[in-house]
């Protein structure tokens, strides 16, 4: 300051220059950090979407199938018990025959061995046709237009995953089959269409990646999130209200407070070990069941709901409580009529974010047998909560472990589905907070 006379204000001195430079450097660091973070996000999204979007489309082969009464209904009485004896393998042969006949009828020349033509159709086709016929026995004897999934390699060819060059080295397909697939597409027999089955069908074995869907996983995740909501919300709110409004402030409540904060930071795998020990080994609940997953995730979510709920309760100004008490309301009335409604937006936001975390959690589920091949849909609640089911995050993990390259695409597709759910939940939380938030 003393040498101000030597340095006019408009001429920055050395120290000012250094300070300005430091600020510019700091800004540059910040900008770099944000650019890096954004680049990582973009890279992640691009890689997931480019790998996963093809999962929402699937190659279908449509051709007429004659449901021959002699093979499908030997007794001729349309007796469902008798008809159920025809296996999916029997149906598969029928489909293969019809497919070969269709190629011949269309006059398409090809070099595929007649025995191998059926390999172009997914093995799932037999099961789908069988379900269709058993659900509607009147179809026997008719010729129906049947839409079958194409084999995973054919599907991969239209999606660019399989090329003529890789096919020549692949024992599961051949360039001849791909050439035939091209001709069939020109003839309108094969088409790539939207695949709602990816969201509705259940998991499939390594031999038919084209038929694998997320149905069981979505239902299992839904069951678990509902269980978490039904248990964690009331318990969490009750605990927070008691701690915040009723409990005396002493060492004991302080210890509880510290413990809740600590529990929120406990790694989720620990809850999995706890769940395995308590719910499965001790209480004897079934493995792979949404009820166990739901209970474990409830334990995990509880502290994550209690903390924001207490914060929301704390944010309600004491003047509101004083006013209510002043006009003669009881403590309980004050809480239920005034404090809770005012804190509701904050509680809701905390709950939704807690649920979103529970939805995306996989580590504790690994330990309670949820990483399994589950093909059958769980039943309706409450009984269905005890049936085996998968969950979205573990289904992703499961698919990445499979040998067939078709599952890579499925896993990325499942990640997209999970991300969409999470974005929707978080957006709802933000929307609710913005809409109902009150400032005093």
């Amino acid at each position, binding site marked *: 300051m003393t040498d101000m006379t030597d340095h006019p204000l408009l001429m920055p001195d050395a120290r000012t220059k250094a300070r300005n430079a430091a600020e510019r450097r700091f800004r540059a660091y910040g900008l770099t950090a944000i650019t890096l973070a954004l680049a990582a996000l973009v890279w992640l999204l691009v890689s997931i979407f480019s790998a996963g979007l093809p999962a929402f489309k699937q190659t279908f082969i449509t051709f007429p199938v004659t449901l021959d009464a002699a093979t499908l209904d030997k007794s001729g009485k349309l007796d469902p018990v008798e008809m*159920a004896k025809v*296996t*999916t*393998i029997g149906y598969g042969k029928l489909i293969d025959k019809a497919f070969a006949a269709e190629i011949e009828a269309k006059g398409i020349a090809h070099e595929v061995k007649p025995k191998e033509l059926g390999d172009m159709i997914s093995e799932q086709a*037999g*099961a789908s046709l*069988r379900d269709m016929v*058993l659900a509607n026995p009147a179809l026997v004897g008719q010729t129906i237009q049947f839409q079958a999934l194409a084999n995973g390699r054919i599907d991969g060819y239209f999606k660019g995953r*399989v090329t003529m060059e890789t*096919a020549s*080295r*692949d*024992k*599961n397909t051949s360039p001849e089959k791909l050439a035939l697939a091209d001709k069939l597409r020109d003839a309108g027999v094969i088409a790539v269409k939207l695949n709602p089955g990816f969201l509705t069908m259940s998991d499939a*074995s*390594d*031999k*038919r990646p084209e038929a694998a869907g997320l149905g069981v996983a979505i239902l299992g995740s839904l069951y678990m999130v509902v269980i978490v909501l039904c*248990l964690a919300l009331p*318990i969490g709110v*009750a*605990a927070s209200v*008691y*701690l915040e409004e009723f*409990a005396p402030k002493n060492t004991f409540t302080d210890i*509880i407070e510290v*413990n*809740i904060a600590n529990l929120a930071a406990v790694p989720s795998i620990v809850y999995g070990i706890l769940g395995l020990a308590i*719910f*499965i080994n001790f*209480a*004897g*609940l*079934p*493995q*792979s069941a949404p*009820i166990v997953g739901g*209970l474990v995730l*409830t*334990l995990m979510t*509880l502290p994550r709901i*209690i903390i924001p709920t207490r914060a929301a309760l704390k944010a309600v100004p004491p003047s509101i409580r004083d006013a209510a008490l002043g006009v003669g309301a009881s403590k309980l009335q004050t809480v239920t009529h005034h404090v809770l409604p005012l804190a509701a937006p904050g509680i809701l936001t905390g709950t939704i974010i807690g649920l979103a975390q529970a939805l995306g959690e996989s580590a504790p589920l690994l330990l309670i*047998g949820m*990483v*399994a*091949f*589950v*093909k*059958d849909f769980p039943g309706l609640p*409450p*009984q269905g*909560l*005890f049936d*085996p089911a998968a969950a979205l995050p573990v289904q992703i993990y499961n698919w*990445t*472990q*499979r*040998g*067939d*390259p078709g599952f890579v695409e499925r896993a990325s597709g499942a990640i997209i589905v999970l991300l969409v759910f999470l974005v929707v939940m978080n957006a709802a939380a933000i929307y609710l907070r913005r809409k109902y938030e009150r400032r005093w």
Partner: protein
Amino acid sequence: MSFTKVSVSALAILAASTVVASARDQLQIAGSSTVLPYATIVAEAFGEQGSFPTPVVEGGGSGAGRAALCKGVGEDTIDIANSSSKIKQSDIDTCAANGVTDIMEIRIGYDGIVFASDIAGPDFALTPAAVYSAIGAKVAKDGALADNAAKTWTDVDAAFPAQDILMLIPGSKHGTREVFDIKLLEEGCKATGAYDLYLATAEGADDKEKGANALKACHTLRTDGVQVEIDGDYTETLSRLDANKQAVGVFGLSFYENNTDKLKVATINGVVPSVETIASGDYPVSRPLFMYVKKQHIGVIPGLKEYLQFFLSEDMVGADGALVAYGLVADPEVEKVRAMIDAEEVMAPLQ
């Protein structure tokens, strides 16, 4: 107070839920990740026929599966453990201690263990001796054991391609590792003469114990980064191989056959691995795959015996069967196994 509440509520829910929980009607299977794809293929086809629900199949590794099998008898324990190695006496003892006294051992077929490298890389013609010389801890040199110093494959044998040694081998929790140890390391150890040198210095009361200790010494691998133990599945080996094109990885035959567009398989003793060469016994590195079944659950959990019969039916393990198409090497003595299932024969004590 909140925790008393939490725990009381949780217990109340538990009490209510155990009442609601009804008898399990689907099979629970766990174990080897090598058997997993076969088991899911069978489970899927089994459930499709509509008579029984689709079994729930879990992976986790052979050892973990057997441990789960031996946890006890009852609906909350699994019915079948898939295993890519034979059951151990310690497993049987645990089982017996927990009341699992009747175990059926069902051999479902054979699986080849293959070495494969990046499709664009050079060919490898491996022998057990070459594998041992590449990654064994000590090799025979001028009649004495010396630390293995081979850096590139040409150091092992001039005929090999000049690239750095890097092998991705299964971790010790995998059943595959046991076969790798016995069929490759021990064989290679003997062929290179390192076994005799280990034997000369081995400790032990008698020759038998000395021999066992020498074999154990043969399993010791170099720790200077030329081998990496993969604890995950073959998909992890494949992605490591993708990242490092120099590497040679260990895979199951079926995994290789489903990824022939990315992998180039190595011959062992000049034999190319395939379903045929493994069935004929020409290809040296193969191992049987097993299912260990809790016989006490037959008749309790619906569909257990039917699942076993379906697993070994012609539609699955026959010449055109679904499992053989996927890469399983069928058991030439499958008829015996089928008879064993029909008779519900339990396994004989281990020798």
